[in-house]
């Protein structure tokens, strides 16, 4: 979607009404309304329905989940550095 400040009618028209409907690899957003209410960015093959990746659409949620899934480093050195940033 165009930025809210964008007043170009065509840009909005294309974003709202002219959607790609590709055969094969496709990135789409799913809203998990019956569960965590998160909007998820899903990479899916429209031909086979094979889903290759699912991440939260919101970058902060994505970061949060990624840090949670990361294995704990025994040295603790790098994660300490990351915190300092």
């Amino acid at each position: 979607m165009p930025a809210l400040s964008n007043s170009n009618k065509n840009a909005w028209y294309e974003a709202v009404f002219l959607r790609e409907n590709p055969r094969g690899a496709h990135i789409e957003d799913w809203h998990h309304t019956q569960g965590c209410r998160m909007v998820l960015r899903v990479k899916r093959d429209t031909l086979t329905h094979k889903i290759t990746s699912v991440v939260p659409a919101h970058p902060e949620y994505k970061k949060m989940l990624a840090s949670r899934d990361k294995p704990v480093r025994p040295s603790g050195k790098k994660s300490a550095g990351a915190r300092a940033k």
Partner: protein
Amino acid sequence: MGGYRLKNGGLINRDKPVSFSFNGRKLNGFEGDSIAAALLANNVQQVGRSFKYHRLRGVMSAGPEEGGALFNVNDGAKRIANVKGTMAELRPQMQVYAQNAYPGIRFDIGAINSLFAPFLSAGFYYKTFMGPMRSTSFWMFCERFIRKAAGLGTASREPDPDSYDIAYGFCDVLVVGAGPSGLHAAAELAEQGRKVILVEQDFEAGGSYLSSGRPEDLALRDQLIRRLKTAGGQLMLRSTAFGLYDGLVTGVIERLTDHITDPDPYCPREITHILHPRHVVLATGASERGLAFGNNDRPGVMLAGALRSYACRYGVMAGGSAVLATCHDGTYEDAIMLAGLGMEITLIDARNRKSRQYQAASAAGITVLNGKVPVNVAGSSAVAGIEVADIDEKGVVDKVTTLIGCEVVGISGGYSPVIHLPSHRGIKPRWEASIQAFVTGQTSENIHVIGAADGVFEASACIDHARQLCAKMMGKKPKKQIRRGIPGGQRPLFEIQIDGRKLKSFIDPQHDVTSEDIRQAHREGFVSVEHMKRYTTLGMATDQGRVGNILGLAVMAQAQGLAVGSSGVTTFRPPFTPVSIGALAARERGADWRPVRRTPMHYEHLAAGAVMTDAGAWKRAWYYPKQGETIDDAYIREAATTRQNVAMVDVSTLGKIAVQGPDATEFLNRIYVNPFAKLAIGKARYGIMLRDDGMVLDDGTTWRLAEDDYFMTTTTAQAAPVMQFLEELLQRRWTDLKVHISSVTDQWAGMAVAGPYAREVLSAQFPSEDWSDAAFPFMGVREITFAQEGRDIICRVARISFSGERAFEIYVSADKGAALWSSLASHIKEGGGCLYGMEALGALRIEKGHVTAAELDGRVTLEDAGFGKMASKTKPFIGSVLRQRPHLIFENRPQLVGIFPKDRTGRFSAGAILCHPDDVSGFGEGWVTAVTHSPALGHWIGLGFISGGAEAWQNKTVMVADPVRDNFVEAEIVSPHMFDPQGGRQHG
């Protein structure tokens, strides 16, 4: 001699005789019989009439491919149509009825259809009912007669008294089919520690072991079942895998009570299992297919293997003498088994060379004739004999035929693997010439096809195939080459025709599709098999083309001059066998169709005598009738009381969203069309939001409770969509905004006290608060804390009005809602006020021209609804660009107006069309969205939309046209603000 029961043998329980009725006639069978087996044992040869031509039909098979023995079972509400007699288990007192035959099988009025056969050929419906002169009304006129004459069973018209369930299951391996391959695979995989579920559609496990006639096969079967169960595997009988879906999710229908005379009333009739396996092993076997030749649908013509099934599994001989017509060695085994049980058999083999089994067959007393094929069945209501003729190496059939007398005919054109389930996953079948049939093609999914389903027909090869799969799944490499096909090979044989003889030869007996229909489809230009299928309806009946599919393709290919199999095959779609709608709906029917939402004051409404109504999933108070009052009496009184005194309505169903965070103000300013940046703390504002495309999404009030804390209300109907849209905006588009939103609809009970004396009621309830206009102005917001049972209860109050009167909306924690409501209600009653419901709410808001979902239907712009001036010109907001699309700003768009009947005693209905009085036609100039009797104005009024709006229709007359109710009323168009347009009453 006819059909009879053998003295011994079979898997039936001869100690348990079962009495049942067929078309009212009392008959006997045994426990373990199928309906078809019991009918054959009683020498019932004619069991029904066919779909289109009403030809006599007998039992044709012993499995789910049956196209003849279809029955109505049970009476009354429990009647089930199209029950396959070959699959349904006989039970005591079962009532079985033939289908499609009135008044009886032997004398059937519809049989006259066969005289009109030339007119009922392929494409009959298309040709007769489509085209310039053939309107829909012509079809509708004819339809009732056609429906009566054609078709199969008749469903009960009563509500289904049975209950159904849906169950979810998980396993490592789901094995479909408990024949030799499936049993071996299931037992071995379970022993290797896999969680295995084995499903079998039959009421006995064993598949071909059941009809082999060899006791050692049954012993092996029992041993395999024991091994499976000991290893923790699960065997589900009477369970059909009907569909294979994304991610290998498999639908399995389990039939629990149809075979029981007096089932436990709490036991569901069927359970739909939704299984999530990691691997699916398809051991679904193969169906024997027939041959197309003259009158091959006569009662007594059966599949050769079925004759053996009835003999070996049920101890039933279909007749004393048989001609078996085949083109492969498989039938020799069947013939030898049947001859051993006393059937007199002539075996005609289309192959010109002698089979390896020739000697064995001759030794069993069978007359084997090579190079001969069946041409025509003699006999009208049953088989009297069969005309056979010589066939040469090139497939040319001699014109000279010989008649061989017999009671039954067994035919076999080979075996077609059951490949329906992989087809559901979009796996394209592959033609396998060695078996003259399609097998499953390649797939990357964890779907494994073994045994006869993959063209492996020998029992020992099936076991090897199952073992090899198990080894593969355990990570080992396959060792042995698996032998496919029938040992001894087969001669491709599909249709037998003699030049110059026109005989009806059926391809799809269930749908009455003949080989001539297929040739006609070809002549009329149908090339694709998918088109041929739809034009002729081949394979579209409940057997889904199990018998006729390959035959039909072969006839089509021959007509096109192509090799059989090159045309491809039609796509099989779920369900594999018919599934009751009830089993898919399970408990979600009637009042349990969806959850019911009750407001916290629900039982207070009931106690006050409210009549409730549905608003989406909500139950809401509609009106509170006093003794003897109609709905009109009640709502007019309630609305009038609101205007003159004071009344209260439950508004808990409104959507409520907590919008919190440092950027909450900015967020609201972006989503509402009107400015929200400067809303003061302690104030509420009415706002409208649009969709991206510029149409109105919703309206409501948003209250500022603190610097970073807002309380938003939405309409009841749009609560969920608004929440969803706001979440999407924050998570996808405006990820930099620090805002948290949370639905609090269920946390707050809401009530609106409205009327000139609203202040007095609130003063009585909260005497310490100042309710003066100065202290609590219009659009003011206040939090009130009061103590109850030692706890501080917080109440949110805003002075806002939907009714147009001085009004307060009060929200309190949901669990305190009923108590506060009751307390307010008693204060209201003391002052002569009342409660009001949805109907009065509607009357009040229509008088005021306030919009609801009836007006904001998703096709309305701000200007259409009269809100054009609210839109900010200085800020962008959602929809601000696309609402300027040319089509949305042209002047003559329908706009919100009020409607008065010209003769004030007249009335009209919502949904009526507003027309120019001289042109009452088409879509008219507008429409009516809501009507009410206005107590304030003393006549009926309406809201609606009309081209150009009120200004364009000043001093003009419109016709409110309601042709459905035959009501035409002249009306005048007025401003939608029909009562107190200046708003003096609500502002105070």
